[in-house]
């Protein structure tokens, strides 16, 4: 049986892991390669590294970070943040990424998803969607949550799948960094509309939040940062908790 995946997210700025609340007020959480190594040992199923500054001068330094992180990992690595073109994707993949997460650039030009899928296969293309509740719907935001778009999260996920995305990384802006729980309504709405796997992100605080998002939320994977960064035995303890709740996870 296919296991539900636990994914650790490293938000990287200037070579350092940081973590914010509602996409703002960042604080430092350590060296990316050291954290990746720890997660690999602890039994995390996958790692996502996001470049949260993505300035032009920061790009080259970020590639060094990807290289350092990928050296420590024999599990899948997704890289996102500032992937604007095929050249950016190529640089990330050459540095050791298995998948690239595309967000604002795909909103600006959805055909980018198709071009990346043609070159690397859909399994390497993750559409990252940041969404916020607005009157019973979920509006998509671009540019790290700063720019509102006209798109609805469910509709955009369906379109992204048809254009070649192989997975959806779905972040609730309302819940990001709050530890108030995943947005299970958002996640289940998207997950039941697409046939590709959906990774829930934003709001993880307790172990029950994970069992909720895997059951009520219909998530295929759950991503978190702070929950894993600041506690040593979190991965093993969380997996035990999920097994006790009948949720299949990797041993």
């Amino acid at each position, binding site marked *: *049986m296919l*296991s539900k995946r636990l994914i650790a997210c490293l938000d990287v700025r200037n070579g350092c892991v940081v973590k914010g609340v509602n996409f703002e007020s960042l604080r430092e959480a350590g060296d990316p390669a050291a954290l990746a190594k720890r997660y690999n040992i602890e039994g995390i199923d996958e790692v996502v590294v996001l470049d949260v500054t993505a300035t032009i001068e920061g790009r080259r330094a970020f590639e060094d970070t990807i290289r350092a992180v*990928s050296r420590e990992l*024999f599990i899948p690595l997704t890289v996102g943040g500032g992937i604007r073109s095929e050249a950016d994707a190529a640089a990330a993949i050459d540095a050791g990424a298995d998948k690239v997460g595309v967000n604002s650039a795909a909103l600006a030009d959805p055909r980018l998803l198709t071009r990346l899928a043609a070159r690397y296969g859909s*399994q390497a293309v993750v559409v990252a969607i940041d969404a916020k509740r607005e009157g019973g719907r979920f509006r998509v935001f671009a540019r790290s949550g700063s720019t509102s778009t006209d798109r609805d999260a469910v509709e955009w996920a369906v379109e992204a799948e048809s254009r070649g995305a192989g997975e959806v990384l779905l972040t609730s802006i309302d819940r990001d960094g709050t530890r108030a729980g995943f947005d299970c309504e958002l996640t289940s709405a998207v997950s039941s509309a697409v046939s590709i796997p959906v990774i829930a992100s934003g709001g993880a605080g307790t172990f029950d939040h994970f069992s909720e998002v895997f059951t009520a939320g219909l998530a295929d994977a759950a991503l978190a940062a702070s929950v894993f960064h600041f506690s040593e035995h979190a991965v093993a303890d969380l997996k035990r908790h999920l097994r006790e709740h009948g949720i299949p996870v990797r041993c």
Partner: protein
Amino acid sequence: MIALIDYGAGNLTSVRKGFHAAGAELMTPAVPADLERASGIVVPGVGNFGATRALAGDWMDAIRRAVARGVPLFGICLGMQWLFEGSDEAPDVPGLGAMAGHCTRLPQTGGIKVPHVGWNSLHRPRDSRLLGGIGEATQVYFTHSYAAPVTPEAAATCAHGDSFAAAVERDHIFGVQFHPEKSSDAGIRILRNFVAAAR
């Protein structure tokens, strides 16, 4: 010398890094004739079966000749599918045909999601050199939409909607549908088993 075939459809960095952890440095042959010196051949690959079109002709002939000499061959993911006769994903592109059968798309029924992405468990119907030391129900990382049928060559099967061949083995021809280079300790063990076969 183990050769890693670069036909433009593989994450060679990861495969090379995995084999490094398994104690072997891979070289990438520039021309098919370089395979005459190979003690083992790895065909990686992610993406569309159509990408294996680049192997048709000289590469396929050179790989066939090496296998006939007894050189171990290892197909990973798309590389394993290529060991079969072909795939519905690109019907006009022939596979190597070393294994009988045809790859088809995974069924997308009853809430089953395709691509099949994530960690799933192996069923081991028989002994295998490649899977030596890998226990029943070991979990490995998959990411694919098409799969090979379960035939007598299947060294391991996996189920996602339907059962499919997760690993194949006949004499010195090996293949895995999952990514050993992304399957943590179990994956590195499998790479080490191939390195031993190619010695």
